[in-house]
């Protein structure tokens, strides 16, 4: 659950929050591609460090840490799997093994971290707007924002349903595994039925507000690229260009080689 907490948007005012979601997304994609291209640990560490200023500028350090905590288990799993796998299949030195496993783990962390920052700093309606302006079909964007809008409503409803059934003697904690799964039927059925009923009411309301009147829908808000957006695009392009150059022409030493150089 703490992982999802780390992804939930918080209404803070920061330069990162105000950035156009599409530009942010391009940045995140660039990091994603670079993280996949590079296998070397130093490169991946640099990619990780690159995100830190963004975290602080956006003032989401607490939430970001929470999402990172949530991934700790998976990260450890990746490390161990990689290490064990290479141990049995390769014949390299221990230092190399450690470095490779750490690199894979870091890749995972870099990916999760960048997406976490994205979702922490982008409100769902900005996201919906970005989807809209990126020429996604409107029905899709609408379904997305409406779903997000009803998440807290349905969470409340699920709680109320649980209370109502508990008040009728339903004990969710008791019984063997099978019984416990069956105990969730009295909660799921009303939840789903109400969701269906709700969607009919929503459809009625949509019809009553001229849904489908014209294919050329307009919008109250419009995303416009500002100075900071252009800066980020420039930064992304620069980082990407430099990274590709390094990948093609500059060999990256491993940490063990770097350490040996010191001695």
């Amino acid at each position: 659950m703490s992982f999802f907490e780390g992804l939930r948007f918080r209404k803070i005012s920061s330069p990162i929050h105000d950035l156009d979601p599409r530009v942010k997304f391009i940045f995140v994609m660039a990091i994603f591609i670079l993280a996949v291209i590079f296998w070397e640990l130093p490169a991946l560490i640099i990619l990780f460090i690159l995100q830190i200023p963004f975290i602080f500028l956006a003032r989401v350090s607490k939430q970001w840490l929470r999402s990172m905590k949530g991934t700790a288990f998976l990260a450890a799993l990746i490390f161990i799997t990689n290490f064990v796998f290479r141990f049995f299949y390769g014949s390299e030195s221990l230092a190399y093994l450690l470095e490779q496993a750490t690199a894979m783990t870091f890749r995972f962390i870099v990916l999760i971290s960048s997406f976490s920052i994205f979702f922490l700093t982008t409100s769902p309606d900005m996201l919906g707007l970005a989807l809209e302006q990126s020429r996604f079909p409107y029905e899709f964007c609408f379904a997305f924002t409406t779903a997000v809008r009803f998440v807290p409503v349905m969470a409340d409803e699920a709680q109320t349903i649980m209370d109502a059934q508990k008040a009728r003697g339903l004990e969710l904690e008791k019984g063997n595994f099978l019984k416990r799964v069956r105990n969730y039927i009295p909660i799921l059925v009303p939840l789903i039925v109400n969701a269906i009923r709700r969607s009919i009411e929503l459809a009625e309301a949509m019809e009553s507000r001229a849904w489908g009147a014209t294919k050329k829908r307009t919008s109250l808000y419009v995303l416009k690229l500002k100075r900071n957006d252009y800066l980020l695009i420039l930064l992304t392009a620069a980082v990407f260009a430099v990274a590709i150059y390094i990948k093609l022409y500059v060999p990256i030493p491993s940490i063990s080689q770097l350490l040996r150089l010191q001695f």
Partner: protein
Amino acid sequence: MIEVRNVYFTYPSGVEALKGVSLRIDRGEFVAIMGQNGAGKTTLVKHFNGLLRPTKGEVFVDGVNTKDASVATLARKVGYVFQNPDHQLFCETVEQEIAFALKNFGFDEESIKRRVDWALNLLGLSQYRESSPFMLSGGERKRLALASVLAWDPEVVILDEPTIGQDYAQKEKLRQFILQLRAQGKTIVIVTHDVEFVADCSPRVVLMANGRIVADGKAEKILTNPKLLAEASVIPPQVTQIFMELEHLGFPREVVDLYEAREIIIKRFKMKVKK
């Protein structure tokens, strides 16, 4: 029967919904908990069957501290009819719906059958025994929810906003039904903001505002006190509003019931005519 001792309750979100509430409801009483939306009425009442447990303070149900008992155990004595029946209906037939709680509470087959029959009859739903609960109309679903709670014969029956969306005839039936339950010795607690309905029933009124109890007493005393009502943002019943305008003629103020109002006015008028 139910004792609330200086209870404070704060939701996980940080909202402090109850700020030092103390209350005592004896067996057989009829209590209406009133106040605006957000005053803390539902929060308070959810403490009566253990759905919520106080952050500070204690709640006792029939001598048992709610912190020491499960919701299921407390629910056996305290039946809670939720505001929206669609939050609990899930079975394939009406019959199964009523039997659900009975099965949970461990009644035997024979008793379950007997009680289901009885509950269906009581609420006039026998013809729907084999129907799907979802096929019933809004009012019928509300009756089904009530039937499924009464089936296990709890000593206390809590009705959360039972008059919402009901028309005049349905409210009258409900009022009659409450009288019936009272005659059986049940303790009834209704949570409502419907002053006119409360004026018709004339229960003990517990008035809440901002997480506190601002008044507790007979309906005639509470619903006719403009200061208390203003504090809880409650509009007085129409009959009371009329008598407030008649005060300067020497009429009593503490009137909420329609028929009592009529008696008083006729008596006074006859007295005047005699002069």
